[in-house]
């Protein structure tokens, strides 16, 4: 014979109030909340606040008209041979594959500028808009978690770009300039997310676009 379900506590019922208001509780759960609220002043007070929040969030207001042909416009920006994720790839290997790509690109960049020269010799202006240009430089900034040993940092840096990663003053943050086609902004953001998912990494992001000065 199964034991009767334990009655929910005051705290459990109090926590259910938002979902009582948005109508997603089961019938049984909603009834328990309704009955409890009748007798509990604290929960009555909570209900009032939550209801105010719900009303304000849903109040009618003018929203700008959504741009027309947005789907077509977005689709036009996707190349025909755009590769998409069709299966689950372990995060490390995705990041490693992207890191190899970046290292390759960095090496190609170095070879373009000749022996001893680096991409940073090119004058860049900083911009924050993703203009459509044939090529753009992206600054990838990676910040390590506190306490990560130097040898592990060195290993990750090596995977991400080796000596092209420049250490910033605080010794936990590194930057790298990468030059890629303009449409790669979102792929790189995807890559930054993969890097950020690693246990050694506190944060990874693109902080600026570097456009070659014409």
């Amino acid at each position: 014979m199964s034991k009767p379900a334990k009655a929910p506590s005051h705290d459990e019922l109090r926590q259910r109030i938002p979902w009582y208001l948005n109508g997603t509780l089961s019938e049984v759960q909603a009834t328990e909340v309704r009955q409890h609220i009748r007798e509990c002043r604290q929960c009555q007070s909570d209900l009032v606040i939550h209801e105010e929040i719900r009303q304000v969030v849903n109040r009618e207001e003018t929203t700008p008209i959504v741009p027309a042909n947005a789907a077509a416009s977005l689709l036009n920006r996707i190349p025909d041979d755009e590769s998409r994720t069709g299966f689950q790839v372990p995060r490390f290997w995705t990041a490693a594959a992207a890191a190899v790509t970046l290292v390759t690109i960095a090496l190609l960049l170095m070879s373009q500028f000749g022996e001893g020269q680096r991409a940073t010799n090119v004058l860049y202006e900083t911009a924050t808009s993703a203009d459509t240009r044939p090529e753009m430089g992206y600054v990838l900034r990676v910040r390590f978690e506190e306490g990560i040993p130097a040898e592990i940092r060195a290993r990750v840096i090596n995977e991400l770009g080796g000596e092209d990663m420049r250490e910033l003053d605080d010794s936990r943050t590194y930057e790298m300039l990468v030059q890629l086609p303009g449409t790669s902004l979102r792929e790189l953001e995807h890559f930054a997310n993969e890097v950020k998912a690693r246990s050694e990494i506190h944060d990874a992001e693109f902080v600026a676009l570097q456009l070659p000065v014409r």
Partner: protein
Amino acid sequence: MTADVNSAEAFSNEQEIALLSQIVDGDRASFEELHNIYQPRLFKFVFRLTRSYNTADELTNDVLFTVWQDAGRFRGDSRVSTWIFGIAYRKSVRHLRKRRLKLVPALDQDAIVDESGGDIERQDWVQQGIDQLPPKQKLTVMLVYYVGLSCEETAAATASPVSTVKTRMFHARRKLKKHLAIAATPSSLLEEEDHE
């Protein structure tokens, strides 16, 4: 009653799953259908968060581009809407943190009372309080009350435990309550408290 963001679905969840599986195969027509379903909803969701047309447009496109790219990652253990708004949640959190957006400047206490002695509307105070919540709390509030997700769906969308979702709502309510209490306190009394 929550907004019609979720209730007036043109497609059932099963139909949306079918669209996703077509998108995995590169079917642009299916992507356009899914785009047309979600783009207005996402746009409104992000616009209400950011109050910026350009940002809402940019983030919405970003989310839908990710849907195109990562359609194969959808495992079917949640509704399609939960998965898509989960993407919107993560991108919005990053955006709000990176830009350190101040959606509504803090109201000057002295500006509350106008010449006639009237008060700013309470709803505007609540809105200001919501706007000042930390990104994850604000987004959780939006997912629960604007999108209308259940507790478990909110947890799935935010990749957080159910307990964390409940805690965020708890703290959001507590902050709003404190914010409204300050709003109700005459500015002269607040100055006295400051000097004590």
